[in-house]
Every structure is written in structure tokens, then in C-alpha cells.
């Protein structure tokens, strides 16, 4: 089975942690992003994540490879797509390293790069039945924002 970073299944954080743990890596830093019940002052009922899947998979693989090159770490990453309820995990990252500093740094790197480079979008459904695409850069003016180019992705961090 080819590893996939995107999944429609509920994320299993325990499995993710065990997948990177090893007897020579003493620290595991992890990050889990949950669906919040509000955004920009509106009450969120559920979320719908979609992706440009082939590119998202490739970017996730590249980010993991970059982290594992830059630090002596083992990285596991999973992002959910489809419909999510409030409180469910949208993303989970686990990073095991011989020393905790490296685990924290690499974990932070992976979530920041994911947000910067991986083509995933989310639509929020509100209590009043309306919905909107989320622009994390400018939550109140999503459509008017001039996008900053990602450019040569990863180059900054090579």
C-alpha cells in the first residue's frame, strides 16, 4: 500500500505516535489541529476540506523529506479531507527525535510548511445555514486578497 497523507477517515493520533516512536528516539513532539466551533465571530457547525490531491500528496511528502533531512527525525503526517464536525482532528503530526529540541523544531516546521505550501481548502458551514471558503490570511476579506506567491517552495528552508 502506498502511503497517503490525505484521508477521509478519522485521524488516529495514537497510531501516528507509535509509527514514529523507536527505542533510539527518546522524544516525540506532536501537533493536532481541531475543528473550532467559531471563526471570525461566526458559529461554525461543520467544515469541508478539499484538496488538489496529487499536488497535496507530493507537497506533504516533500515537507516530510525536508524535515527528515534537516533534523535527525522521523515524521508522520496525516490530513483529513471531506466533512468534519466541530472538535474533530483535521491534521495530526508526530515527530520523533533523539532529543526533544529537534522534535519540537521539526514538528513546528512541518505544520508551518503544510499551511504555507499544501493545496488544501476549507469551507465553513455556519449555524445560519450559510457557508464560506476560509482565507486564513485575511479571514474578513477572503476574496479581495492579493495572494503572495509561494514561489520556489521549500527553497527558503533548504
Amino acid at each position, binding site marked *: 500500500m502506498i502511503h497517503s497523507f490525505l484521508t477521509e477517515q478519522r485521524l488516529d493520533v495514537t497510531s501516528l505516535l507509535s509509527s514514529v516512536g523507536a527505542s533510539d528516539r527518546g522524544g516525540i513532539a506532536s501537533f493536532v489541529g481541531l475543528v473550532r466551533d467559531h471563526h471570525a465571530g461566526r458559529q461554525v457547525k461543520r467544515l469541508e476540506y478539499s484538496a488538489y490531491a496529487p499536488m497535496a500528496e507530493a507537497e506533504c511528502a516533500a515537507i516530510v523529506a525536508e524535515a527528515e533531512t534537516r533534523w535527525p527525525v522521523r515524521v508522520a503526517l496525516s490530513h483529513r479531507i471531506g466533512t468534519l464536525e466541530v472538535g474533530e482532528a483535521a491534521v495530526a503530526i508526530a515527530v520523533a527525535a533523539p532529543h526533544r529540541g529537534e522534535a519540537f523544531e521539526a514538528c513546528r516546521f512541518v505544520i508551518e510548511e503544510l*499551511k504555507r505550501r499544501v493545496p488544501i*481548502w476549507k469551507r465553513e458551514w455556519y449555524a445560519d445555514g450559510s457557508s464560506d471558503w476560509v482565507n486564513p490570511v485575511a479571514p474578513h476579506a477572503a476574496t479581495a486578497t*492579493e495572494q503572495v506567491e509561494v514561489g520556489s517552495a521549500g527553497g527558503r528552508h533548504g
Partner: protein
Amino acid sequence: MTASVETVTVKVLLFASYADWIGRETVEISLPAPATVADLVRQLRDELPQASRLPTRPLTAVNAVHATADSPLREGDEVALLPPLAGG
């Protein structure tokens, strides 16, 4: 008989809000060669009236790799216009 102009035909992929605005997920478009991502976006905004909501310099990818406005386009390329990323 007019002089033949060489063209580049690419497939444009639209996602999320952009797909909603334009009402479709793919568009095929032919551009005079040589062409860049910026040329493609300009022509799209001119040809499809709904496309005027697109930013003048959206995030883009060519063949599933992040691109810039001056990235060159080749025949058969898949060019994705990426709304603001919201993963995580």
C-alpha cells in the same frame, strides 16, 4: 490565408472558491507562444467574465508544482489556480 501563430494549449484546474466563481473545475485555454503563467491568468480574466474576481496574481502550480507569474507554459501543461491555502 493568415500567417499561422504558434499556440500553447494548457488545461486549467480550478478549486474551492475559484471553481465556485467560475462555475467549473477545468478550462482548456490556448495562448500565443511563448506563454507564462501571468499570460494565462490575464487571458482567463479577459475571456471568462466570471473570472474577473480572480486575483491578478493568484497562487498557481504547473504540473502540480508551485509556480510563479513568470513560469513558462508548455503544450499540455496542467495549470492549477490555487485559492488561499487553508490546510491544517
